[in-house]
Structures are given as structure tokens and as C-alpha cells.
């Protein structure tokens, strides 16, 4: 980071907006480097490295927000953009009913750096492309597999956040992920099976430690078994869900409804509102007594653990659901005060220098229980064990959901037997979590992250990690994922 010049630009911006009489302002300067390597059907289809550099100035003036951003980092552009942000805020103020008030936050001066053993950008491209080609070769060698894909992704963010309150934060953050997929064909049908490392804030050791060749062989074999498996019969089943699958269930049915800006109507025109309205906090039964969902933006390596959010608020840990009762929201400095909280939960994040930060889901995880996975399965007479992500859809208040999965196994009389295909289950969020009667212990806990969580207009991609151990849900409605079923 060219710290001195960024500091100079930041000071120039804040001096300019202070002179305009703003109540609050901040500037974020960001330099993001992203490397993506994509392979398909035994070939490397793309290697791309992108550098995305710019700044955004956010001002609060006359109780209303203005935001302007530019990719031109110069002594001429910064004051122009600062003036534009103020002008925009004045316009917003002309349509204000309730003035924006930020809850207090101590001033922070700090530097945050991702701990990593191996910088992904220092790893030779030849090594990375060879890994993907070998993984695809292993997958395609399996009889019945007709297609393969594999990819690696890494991102570095160098960021400076400076505010008129005196906060000065420097970040050097990394994130890494890899994946491969097998597609099998049988009798006019096709089916995919995937292996994904989690997205984590760590180094390339995440990729080296994952055994892509072993995992490639496993998913190839399972893709073939899946496409040949019998379709599920519609009915009620007990479900045992793996941590990767649960990461999506938690994200959609707990993460999004616990965003306070949604509960207050800010997303009404796009992502929707929330059934978890503020009047329900502290009393509403979200799930059974074994369901405790904790937001933790302090856990090392997780995507939302960046030390501070884009309000300059310290990352924290708090309860969303405690013993089945809804108790807490994800907030930023703007909305926290609307539910009489004295401090933001530090969940305000933007996806680039050109985006304005908004409330994003924290790293929400299901607290472990005491069972083993075998215990959970042993107590199921007729059920389905589900791994990974499939299709997903949920209504705009986050009640009515439908989830698929990446792989399904029938459970009969306490034993996992053969694979099934075309499994989708559906239900209502509070009833579904109310049917959770067992969670596996901490040794089963795994973390999976999202970097494409869509929200906002213009749309932004949010980043967060969800952790869980396996969990069991009783008598859930399962359908066959076919149009004529």
C-alpha cells in the first residue's frame, strides 16, 4: 500500500467535506487484486488477474447520506468527488423524514493483516493449472463421467478507511478457495457432484492441504452413483444435514432475516423484508431448544472477521438465536439506534470502493451439541442424509423455503444405505428449526463461506462464513425435483 499518498488523498477528502459542514464522513481507498483460474472438460479455459483500485467518499449531511466514488486516484479527482458526495447528500436531505443518527463507536487506529503461511499470489501459475488439469483428468477417467470442471480463486484487498471522527484503519486481507465438479450422464439424465474447499481468509495452504485428486475421484464415483440412483418418493422424512448444506440453510433462513435493515424495510424493493420484526426480539420462538445460532465476526480465518467493518466498528460475537429464541440482529451504526442498541454489531460492509456499505449477514454458526453423526443417523428409521448445496429459494420474508442438496443418501433403520436423486425439501423457517432435535458435537464442526451473497440496489456481493456440525430435523416434507412428479 502506498500509505503516504493514500493518507494524503484521505486527508484532502476529509478536509474538503469538513469545510462543507458535514456531520460525519469517511473515505475508503481500496486496491483489490483477484486471480481466477477456471478449467472445464480437461482444459484451462481462463486465467485472469484483475486489479480494481479506487475510492469512495461517504458523507452524512443534514441527516442524510451521500456517496460518490471514482477509480481515478488524483489530487484533482478527490475534491471533485468529495463535493459530489456532499451535493448528493443535500439532495437526499430534501426527501428525509427521519434524520440518520449514528450510534457512537470509539475511535480506532489499527492495522489488520490476514495470517497466512503461503501467499496465493506467490504460488507459480504452473502449479495451480497443473493441479486443476490433474483433478479434471482424475474425474474424467471415471466411466460414466462426461464433463469436469475445476477452479481456483484468490483475492487480496488493501484498504484504508479514514473518518472525520479520527478512525484510521489499514487492512491487508486475503481470501482463497478451490473447487471441482463431475457431471455424469445416464439414460438421458445428467447429475453433478462437487467438492468445494471453504472460502477462508488464509493462504494457499488451504489448497495444498485439500487433496484435490482424492476428492476428484470421490465426486466422480458419486456423480455416477447419483445419476443412476432411484428418484426419491415424496413424503415426510427425517433429515440429517451436513455442515456444508446447513451453511446455506442458515444463510437463507437465519442470516438474511436477522439483518436489521431488512426488518426495517430498507430492502423492501429487492431482497425483501423479514419475518423477524423488532417486536419479536427476545420472545419469538425461532427453533427448538437445541438451536443456538451465534454471530461471530471474531473467529480467525472467517470471511467477515476483518477486525473492523466499513463503519470502523470492531468485529464482535453475539447471539442471534439462543436456546431457540430470537434475540439479536446484525446491525450497523445507522440502524442499531432504531432498536435502542447503544453500539453497532459491526456488520456494515461494502463489496468494493465503488459501493456504499450496508448491513450484511455476520459469520452466523450453529452451536455444536453433544451427539456424533452416527448417533444422529442411528436414531432415524426413515430418513435422508444430505450433503452440499443444490437449488435453493425462499420467499421475500424468509418463511417459505425449498432446498435441494448436492448428494442424498437414504437412511433406513439407523443406517445410511444407497444414494437417491432429485430430492428437494420444503417448509416454513420457524417450524423447520423447531423440528431440529439433535446437533453433532464440536468435532464435526466445519466452516463454509459465501462471496456471492446478493443484496442491495445496485447489487453487491457480501462475504460471510457459516459454521455448523451435522444436525437432525424430524418429519420434513420432501418432494421429487421433477416437473411432472
Amino acid at each position, binding site marked *: 500500500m502506498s500509505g503516504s499518498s493514500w493518507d494524503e488523498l484521505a486527508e484532502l477528502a476529509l478536509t474538503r467535506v469538513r469545510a462543507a459542514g458535514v456531520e460525519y464522513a469517511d473515505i475508503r481507498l481500496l486496491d483489490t487484486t483477484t486471480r481466477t483460474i477456471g478449467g472445464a*472438460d480437461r*482444459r*484451462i479455459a481462463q*486465467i485472469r*488477474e*484483475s*486489479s*480494481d*483500485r*479506487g475510492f*469512495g467518499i461517504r458523507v452524512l449531511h443534514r441527516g*442524510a*447520506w451521500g*456517496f*460518490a*466514488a471514482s*477509480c481515478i486516484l488524483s489530487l484533482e479527482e478527490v475534491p471533485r468527488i468529495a463535493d*459530489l458526495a456532499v*451535493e*448528493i447528500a443535500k*439532495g*437526499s436531505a430534501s*426527501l*428525509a*423524514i427521519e434524520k440518520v443518527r449514528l450510534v457512537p463507536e470509539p475511535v480506532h487506529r489499527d492495522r489488520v493483516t490476514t495470517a497466512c503461511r503461503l501467499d496465493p499470489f506467490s504460488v*507459480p*501459475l504452473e502449479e495451480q*493449472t497443473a493441479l486443476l*488439469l490433474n483433478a479434471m483428468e482424475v474425474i474424467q477417467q471415471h466411466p460414466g463421467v462426461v*464433463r469436469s470442471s475445476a477452479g481456483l480463486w484468490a483475492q487480496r484487498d488493501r484498504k484504508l478507511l479514514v473518518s472525520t471522527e479520527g478512525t484510521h484503519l489499514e487492512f491487508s486481507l486475503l481470501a482463497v478457495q478451490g473447487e471441482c465438479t463431475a*457431471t455424469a*450422464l445416464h439414460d*438421458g439424465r*445428467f447429475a453433478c457432484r462437487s467438492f468445494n474447499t471453504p472460502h477462508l481468509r488464509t493462504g494457499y495452504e488451504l489448497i495444498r492441504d485439500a487433496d484435490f485428486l482424492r476428492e476428484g475421484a470421490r465426486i466422480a464415483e458419486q456423480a455416477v452413483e447419483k445419476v443412476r440412483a432411484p428418484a426419491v418418493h415424496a413424503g415426510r422424512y427425517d433429515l440429517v444435514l451436513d455442515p456444508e448444506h446447513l451453511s446455506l440453510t442458515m444463510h437463507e433462513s437465519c442470516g438474511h432475516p436477522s439483518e436489521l435493515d431488512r426488518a*426495517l*424495510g*430498507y430492502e*423492501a*424493493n*429487492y431482497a425483501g423484508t423479514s419475518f423477524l420484526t423488532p417486536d419479536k426480539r427476545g420472545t419469538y420462538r425461532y427453533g427448538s431448544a437445541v438451536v443456538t445460532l451465534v454471530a461471530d465476526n471474531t473467529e480467525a480465518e472467517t470471511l467477515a472477521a476483518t477486525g473492523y467493518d466499513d463503519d470502523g466498528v470492531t468485529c464482535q460475537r453475539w447471539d442471534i438465536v439462543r436456546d431457540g429464541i430470537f434475540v439479536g440482529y446484525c446491525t450497523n451504526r445507522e440502524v442499531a439506534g432504531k432498536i435502542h442498541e447503544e453500539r453497532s454489531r459491526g456488520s456494515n460492509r461494502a463489496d468494493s470502493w*465503488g459501493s456504499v456499505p450496508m448491513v450484511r449477514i455476520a459469520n452466523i454458526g450453529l452451536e455444536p451439541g453433544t451427539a456424533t453423526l452416527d448417533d444422529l443417523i442411528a436414531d432415524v428409521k426413515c430418513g435422508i442424509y444430505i450433503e452440499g448445496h443444490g*437449488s*435453493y*429459494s*425462499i*420467499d*421475500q*420474508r424468509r*418463511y*417459505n423455503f*425449498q432446498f*435441494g442438496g448436492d448428494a442424498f443418501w437414504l437412511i433406513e433403520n439407523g443406517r445410511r444405505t444407497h444414494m437417491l436423486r432429485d430430492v*428437494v425439501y*420444503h417448509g416454513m423457517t420457524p417450524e423447520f428449526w423447531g423440528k431440529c432435535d439433535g446437533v453433532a458435537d464440536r468435532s464435526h464442526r466445519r466452516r463454509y463461506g459465501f462471496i456471492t451473497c446478493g443484496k442491495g*440496489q*445496485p447489487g453487491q456481493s457480501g462475504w460471510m462464513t457459516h459454521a455448523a456440525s451435522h444436525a437432525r430435523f424430524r418429519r420434513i416434507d420432501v418432494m421429487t*425435483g*421433477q*416437473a*411432472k412428479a
Partner: protein
Amino acid sequence: MKHSAGDHTVLSIRDVHGGTTRFANNQVIQNVHQRRGTLSITVAFGRQQGSASTTDFTAGAVRETLKQAERIARVSPEDPEYLPPVGAQAYLGLPTSRPETAAAGPARRLDYAREAIGQCKMENLNAAGTVSSSLAVVGLAADTGLTAYEERTEARFSLTVQAGDATGWAAAAHRSLDRLHIQERTLTAISKAKRGDDDPQELPPGRYTVILEPAAVSGLLSGMLWTLDAKSFDKGTSPFSGKLGARIIDRRLSLVNQPDHVDLLGYSFTSEGLPVFGSCWIEAGVLKQLLHDRYTAQQHQVDRIATLESPVFSGERPIGTRVEDLIRTTQRGILVTNFWYIRLVNPSDLTLTGMTRDGTFLVENGEIVSAVRNFRFHDSPLRVFNHLDAYTAPAEAVTSETGKALVPAMRIDDFNFSSVTRF
């Protein structure tokens, strides 16, 4: 270009200025303006290629981006599907830029937001929505003689009106900011919300006759178009495999690409510099085209690669121009304003799921008789568009999940609503 060591070099520039005024609870919650320029460089040595991009247009950054693309290309495995960049092309030269949109700034966007909010406040209703406008300058060049340049403007408006537990919605997208019809669309959203606030009844899940407004039809159509790619077709991993030249939907329906249509967001060239042109995709229900890249086009001996950025879906002899023409002739059915969160459930038969949103009503004897609670659907557009009963002439449709299209409102028999939600 002259500093490149590669056998071939392609430069792509996109410079976008634009902003969005976003409102909720009848006040502005977000008001942003952004300028982002991006230069992408792809370099090839033989069949090895690499790409790098930057938002920094200083000479040093451009040189470093070129060097990075070269470094990547030199160590890339050879790509058996690599093709050199295309040479000079002839383009339609469409009027893709409108000065009123290019000139619009935060003040103009705010005026439109004020107009929508004002109408809702007069009705004691709650407005949430956006007004946005942008100008994109797009350029392409390659050492093969390829040069392409275009200015593209785009304006968008969307509005959700809340009346108690009910919502009404309308949206628009156009090259011209003057063609968003803010007042008319605000009144539509208000009308939907007020009608929906009248004690919605819960109907059981099941198979219903439905009247799908253009936005809802567009959602289903988009789900179908995503999977038309030729590579999947060739590998047998497409729901359309083996169906090129076969009838896939009702024989009265056709789908064309019409880039020069004034109400669509067509453009003159693709990201590879290929010319965009009018083309027929489905004719009388028969699939006529696949989505090709240059490699599969060569394999299939396709000379010109057809695109689908300006879709017009239509049927012969429509029964009218407005959804009311369908309502009037319906004995009993469910009127659907829009679908939300549409996702693929089964790639083999193209089963999709999603929820109804922003106005779902029971129609009996030619009239809307009540609001109903929102349903989840579970069906395939290949099945749905074969259960077509009646339809209107195509109309503008834009949703938060699809691009802009011209599609009819449709009455469909035997549509599968698999469950119901709480509101």
C-alpha cells in the same frame, strides 16, 4: 498494442458513469454516484493466453497490466479451443445512447424518486424503490484490425408499494430516462398494493389455471434461455440435447432476437467484437438456434453467431394487448404479477422453483375477486409453455432477476403451485 510481445493482443475498455437514488419508507436511504473505468488486456502466444485488467489508466499501470497478461500467457497451458481474435467487422450502428440519460445526474434521479414517493404518500402508502441512470463507453481493439466503439445509456426505475401486509410493484428499464413512465408505473404499483391489502385468502397448493403478467413470463423464459449453450448440448448435459430442430413449446409461440427494437437494450457488438444481428431462436415452437461461442460455432459450421440480448417472445393472433384482456375471459384462475427467487431444481428437465410476489389474485368469472397468499411454484418452462391457453401481444418486461424482454401475458393451464406461504 504496439508494446505487446504477443502473437495476438485484444484490448477492451469500459468506462461507466452512473448513479442510483434508492428509497424506502418514503425517504432516500442510499444515494450514490460512481465512475469506474476498466481496461482488460488479453495476450496470446500461439494457443497460450492470459488476461489482466485494471481500473488505473495511467501509462505505468497500463504497461504493467500488459506485462501481467503476457506473464500469465507464457505459463498457461495451451488451450485446444483457442481461436485468434476476429478481424475488422461491420456493425449495425444502433442508437444505443440517449443524451437525456447521459446528461442525467443525481438531481434528475432525485426528481423522479420524489414523484414516486409523493404519489404514494398521497395515498398514505409506503414506497421503496430506485431510480438509476448510467452512461457506458465501450471500446474494443485487436491487432487483427478489429475496432469497435459504442456509447450505451441505460435508465431504470423500480418501485414496491406497501399497503399493510400487501405489496404492489412495477419496474422499467430503457435507453431513455424519459421513457420510464414513472407516474403510470407508480399508479400500477399503488393499485396492486391497495387491492392486495384486502384480506388475502389462503388457497391450497395444487394445479391451477394461471394468468402470468409479462414479468412472470419473463422469469420463466429466462430460466429456459440460460441452458441453451451448445457445449452442454453436445455433451448431452442440456435439457435441449437432441432437440435442435424439434418442437419444444407450443407451436403458436416464437422467440426472436431484435437488437434494433427501440424498447429493448440492444447493442451493436459482443464482448468479442462480433456483430449483433436479428435472429430467430424458436419458430412456431421449434428450436432453431443454440448459444455458441466461437469454438462451438466452428464445430457446428455456424457462420454467424446469434445472440439473445434483445428477446421478443410472441404468439400469432394474440387476444389483446393488456393482461386485462386475459382476465376478462378467465372463468377461474390465479393472476401472478411476478415471480421471485427463481432457481433451477432439475437441470435434466429444467424444473424451476420460485415464489409469487407483489400481487397474487384470484380471478373468477372475468374479474379479480380477492388477493391470495403467495405460492411457491415447482414446474418447468418446457412444460408450462406447452400448456398455453391464451396470450396477449408482447409488452415490456423487466424484473430484478432477468434482463429486459418483450413478452406476452399468458394464460396457462395446469400450473403447479407446490406450497403456500404466510402472506
